[in-house]
């Protein structure tokens, strides 16, 4: 069993060891936290799933959808979950696997449940309202991108020539930041980001590391930086970058390895300078 609190190196080592030990043709137990809808109580249900070579959590959920019978033989409803690309690039399939937040499509069963009868738990993220079973509503995550105006304000789609040139180095940094797939793993792990069901509270609650990092991305762009001040204003207000407690949980769980703490530090400095400037300008 992999503990929630191990470091990523020992986690990787434990998974690799499991992968080597995986028994062919075994059946494992999926213990899934289920909920029929908002305001409904949660319950756990077990499912027995035969594991083919290369199976991952989604391929097993597909099996359960086609065979909705619990481990003790009772018919039940198919489990509901969110997924898209199945190659860890769309960000849809985030959930807690074995108690730890991650993309489920890339969670190989061999890494978690190498022996016959091993148990894997699946739970929905806790920082977003549950829609049903493993599917949560992440609208707030996208909303927070609006708070920092995460776009380049172009003059329309007319033919106006190329954009600004940039060095390969800067492109490399921007590309890395731009790989954020809005999965929400960082938000689930962040102690400062809490469940907030009321949309009218979103603008004053902690914006989250993903959005802080996006502000940095657009402030780096030749044209995007014309909105830099507005982005920094947003990050200085309620729920802004100063609410980050620097626990660094976010960066440890980001499946895209976005340098979130670097972004938070950079935006922290930028807001400080911005604050001084504003103060002296009056």
């Amino acid at each position, binding site marked *: 069993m992999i503990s929630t609190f191990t470091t990523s190196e020992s986690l990787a080592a434990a998974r690799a060891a499991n992968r080597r030990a995986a028994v062919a043709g075994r059946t494992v137990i999926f213990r899934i936290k289920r909920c029929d809808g908002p305001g409904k109580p949660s319950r756990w249900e077990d499912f027995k799933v035969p594991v083919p070579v290369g199976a991952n959590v989604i391929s097993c959920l597909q099996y359960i959808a086609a065979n909705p019978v619990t481990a003790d033989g009772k018919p039940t409803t198919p489990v509901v979950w969110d997924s898209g690309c199945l190659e860890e690039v769309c960000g849809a399939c985030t959930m807690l696997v074995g108690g730890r937040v991650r993309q489920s499509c*890339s969670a190989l069963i061999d890494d978690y449940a190498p022996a016959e009868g091993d148990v894997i738990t699946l739970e929905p993220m806790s920082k977003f309202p549950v829609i049903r079973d493993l599917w949560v509503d992440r609208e707030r995550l996208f909303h927070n991108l609006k708070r920092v105006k*995460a776009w380049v304000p172009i003059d329309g789609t007319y033919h106006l020539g190329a954009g600004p040139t940039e060095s390969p180095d800067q492109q490399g940094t921007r590309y890395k930041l731009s*790989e954020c797939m809005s999965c929400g793993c960082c938000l689930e792990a962040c102690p400062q980001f809490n469940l907030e069901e009321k949309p009218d509270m979103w603008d004053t609650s902690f914006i989250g590391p993903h959005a802080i990092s996006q502000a940095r991305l657009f402030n780096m762009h030749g044209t995007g930086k014309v909105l830099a001040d507005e982005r920094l204003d947003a990050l200085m207000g309620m729920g802004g970058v100063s609410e980050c407690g620097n626990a660094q949980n976010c960066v440890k769980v980001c499946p895209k390895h976005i340098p979130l703490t670097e972004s938070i530090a950079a935006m922290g400095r930028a807001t400080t300078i911005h604050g001084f400037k504003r103060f002296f300008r009056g």
Partner: protein
Amino acid sequence: MAQHRVIVVGGGLAGLSASVRIAEAGLPVDLFSMVPVKRSHSVCAQGGINACNEVARQQGYSEYMHFDETVYGGDFLADQPPIYEMCHWAPRIIDLLDRMGVPFNRTLEGMRDLRLFGGSLFKRTHFAGASTGQQLLYALDEQTRRYESEGKVTKYEFWEFLWPIIEDGRAVGIVAQDMRTMQIRAFRADAVVMATGGNGLIFGKSTNSVICTGGAASRCYQAGVDYGNGEFIQVHPTSIPGADKLRLMSESARGEGGRVWVPRKKGETRAAKDIPEAERWYFLEEKYPKYGNLVPRDIATREIFQVCMDGYGVAGQNQVYLDLTHKDEAYLNNKLGAILEIYEKFVGDDPRKVPMRIFPGVHYTMGGLYTTFTPKDDGKGLVLGNPVQMMTNVRGLYAFGEVNFAYHGGNRLGANALLSCIFDGLFCGLSVANYVQDCEPGKAPAAAMAPAPFDAAVASEKAKHDRFLSTVGQGSGDKSFNAYQIGRELGEEMTAACTVVKSAQRLEQCISKLAELRGRFAKVRLSDGAIWTNQSLSYTRAVGDMLILAEVIAKGSLLRKESRGSHFRSDFPERDDANFMKTTRATYNPGSGDHTIAFQDINSSLVKPRQRSYGKVENKPAEKKEPVGV
């Protein structure tokens, strides 16, 4: 005065670029998607986007050559004027994406870097790391979010399109369902743009995302939109076989020097690294010295398929090596990092050290909703702003992106799809705006119409929905009436009969299997009666729609008695321009549930057809280097 509105269904590259363009023209847009638009399937595209550029131009390349390559690559099946226009617009599209902030890879001087891709001898593919589609989608997602925050675009995410509302032959709205609350309602609009992508799930496992069922296209087809070239399905030569899907290994792996090979000895048991050069058969390089590993997809697919059928597959299985181990690791990480990580993550081997194992997988839908266009007088391109550009045969109903049948003919060139999606949105988006303002809707906006047709459409969808729900708990629990079971059998049958090699005999067998599945589907039983977030209901409904499109694909395949592009008939191995350089146009008969299929002339006014051989030379491995008597 009642306001005009436009509905865009689908938030991939095509839908988002259309939304941005139409909103910019001053019309409010309602944007529907089954997933948050940022998670659309376009996010999966890895390799890049094609366009003529200054460097290639100074080496002798041109927009015209891009056009010619696309026509030739598509084996002369596509109408030519739209391709001409698209290729001439391509450089402007790259510039626009660049202005939107797409982090295109850069040269030392800070210019956009370029890579080589299949079907061309020039570097004309722009790329952003190894996740170009993701980066382009995000740029358009950001622009859409900007318009959304200004109130010009309204998003309906997690809403499923169920049916187009057509009144007096003109699209006036859609019926859609909220996938969470299950509410079904009508939305009015003066034009509807379908941008719902491809249909890979008809083939079970494919490189597509889980929502690429083709359900939306099938519903439009059943409602009266014709379907073009259904039988043309691209099978990507290099995918990674997996339990739940086939993960793509991008063509850029070959573009950056990846070499495809198998051991020369059948039943070879040594590991790849222990097999000396002389005992490896680089069959693509040998048969196609000019293009080598970069022959177009259909050719690479068939060659890989054939080599495995002939018993040369690695470890006796359906797989060949795709080898990058001769390349420098730092170079590989820089150019291909993301896709190599995918391989490592899902297979467990490091492709920088061990050759990858790959096999062809269903990848792209060339066929699609039938669309029209108005060429310029000399045939060189399309008239900008003319209302019919990429309008289907139903007035006011447009099809953009992978869901239409235009541009790619019998085979799509790598890195041309992203281009066609964005081109549709930008170029034809203006046509939508002009249609709404200048044509019939200008006089009679949908918002001012009597409610009857909208209410009727909702009632009809509710009835279908309730019929599915009423099957819960019915019947004996027999597996053969389970939608997942029917879906799986459909996928297996279609992959076996309608992909790399087809024949009359196999196709006829497939058509009877489809009839059997349709019969079973009529008695399908649901396992979830929830009236809240019922995913199995949505999937079940899609299976019914996939069965209908599958018939279009199989029947078109049977009637097209020739081989062209991705469509290879072992019983008709030659291309037959006299009879089949034509669009396959299918029309649905709602009464009988059957299809009328006709072949329609194409506009080939610009380039005359020539043999599509990519300079092939015939060589069998034994004739070359295989040591005798081993």
